[in-house]
């Protein structure tokens, strides 16, 4: 049961980190265009 619980929590952390990647990608694209324009 403990292994299952740990696997589940690791999965949730993986999903949160994966979603954060999109957020960072958005920030990077915005940063890139501002730099290019300057």
């Amino acid at each position, binding site marked *: 049961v403990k292994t299952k619980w740990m*696997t*589940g929590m*690791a*999965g*949730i952390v*993986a*999903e*949160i980190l*994966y*979603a*954060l990647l*999109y*957020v960072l*990608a*958005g*920030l990077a*694209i*915005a*940063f890139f*265009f*501002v730099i290019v*324009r300057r």
Partner: protein
Amino acid sequence: MLEKPLNRYVPIVHYIGVVMIGLGFIQMVPLITALLYREWSIFFIFLLTASFAILIGGLAALICNPPKNVRLSWGEGMLVSAASWVIGMLICALPYYLSGSYLSYLDACFDVMSGLTTTGLVLIQDIDHLSNGINMWRHLLTFVGGQGMVVLALSFLVKGTSGAYKMYVGEGKDERLAPNVINTARHIWKISLIYLVIGTSSIGVANLLAGMSVDRAFLHGIWIFMSAWSTGGFAPMSQNILYYHSLLVEVVSMVFFVIGSFNFALHFAVISGKRRELYKNIETMSFSVTVTILTVLTTVGLMKAGVYTDTMALFRKGFYQLLSGHTTTGFMTIYARQFYHEWGDLALFAIIIAMLIGGSACSTAGGFKGLRMGIIFHAFKKDIRKLGQPESMISMQKMHHIKDIEIDDNITRSAMLIVIAYILTFVIATLNGMLGGFSFLESAFESASVTGNVGLTIGVTSPAMPAFLKITYIISMWIARLEFVSILALGAYLMARARGKWQKI
């Protein structure tokens, strides 16, 4: 069994009754909220409407109790889903209307359908001074609608499995997380409730850091999480997420609405240990590609229009709106009319496309869905590759969605049909918007928002808009959320009844 025409009503009415009982029981949550905050009039309204829903639903379920071995046909299962959403809307609108926050019952029905379909457009009056009970009801409707009303009833109120899968499919979901559909429904609720705890805590802490009092921070935390996870878009304040003026709240809400737009089968696979599925799955791949292309288009459009020229403004205003639209959430960090007056055509075009594409299949999100975009893209690739090959050669195209699946003509055809149905709904809603006196751009934007169950608004949706437009939007939200098939089953049933014939659909 059940050859006589009249008997076919029995299981349909029974299951609709069960869904109504479920909707009555969930009214206990706002009822307890109203009790805790001593909002007595709201407490008595929920006491009345919850009792009414349980009584009516209970009577329907008891009087029309079908024999144990009765099996619902596909048409009947879908009819239960489609009709439950309409009757559910009428019942759930009662507390709204009795609270005095709406100008008409139609407006209350609009907000219920907007909540249940996780759209997020609102016609409510004076949102900033709503009672906590009504605010809890608004966000709870979004949360329940995201998982599915029928899924709720299947999880907690239905014992047998007969016909359950057909009702589940009728609600726009078709993935099995477990061999048994009732266990599938329970898994969906389990995943959502685990995230409810994590999300409420995270947003609550972000609100505390933004300077809110403890109880308000966590109350707003639970509401914002419910909206984000269900890709709903309701917020307790009229300025939506802009109200918080907090980068942390914006980032945390983005994380949860992105996760909320993922397929429940993907959540289940990742939580079961298959973490690689996150970047191998066709839906996340499709989402990554479309988000990247549309973010670039939006950013270029906004820079061309001369608004939001620094990185943080582009990120917090441009990217936030784009991601909110693409996941079909509808959270906003700008005022509605800024879209029209500041954004320019290119950025608006990108956001309309994002709203139409939407999130993942079998999730809380709306739109064409990433799965269908991936299938259509692969089908194009297969056809183009075929042109350069000998005629006798058979080419196969596979995609990865939990397991490897071969894309055959049937899969492509059904994906294309649903996309065409979405486009038709979008066109009809746009036409009605123009008939209501709005410009093409305003009508197209709002129509993409209702068809994709998004909730971003350019300013068309208001209590002052024509009644026929409100009805058009209610129908668009409903048929798009249920993904057309169950609505067609309901239409076929009504036509058969009108002709005086009963046919097993």
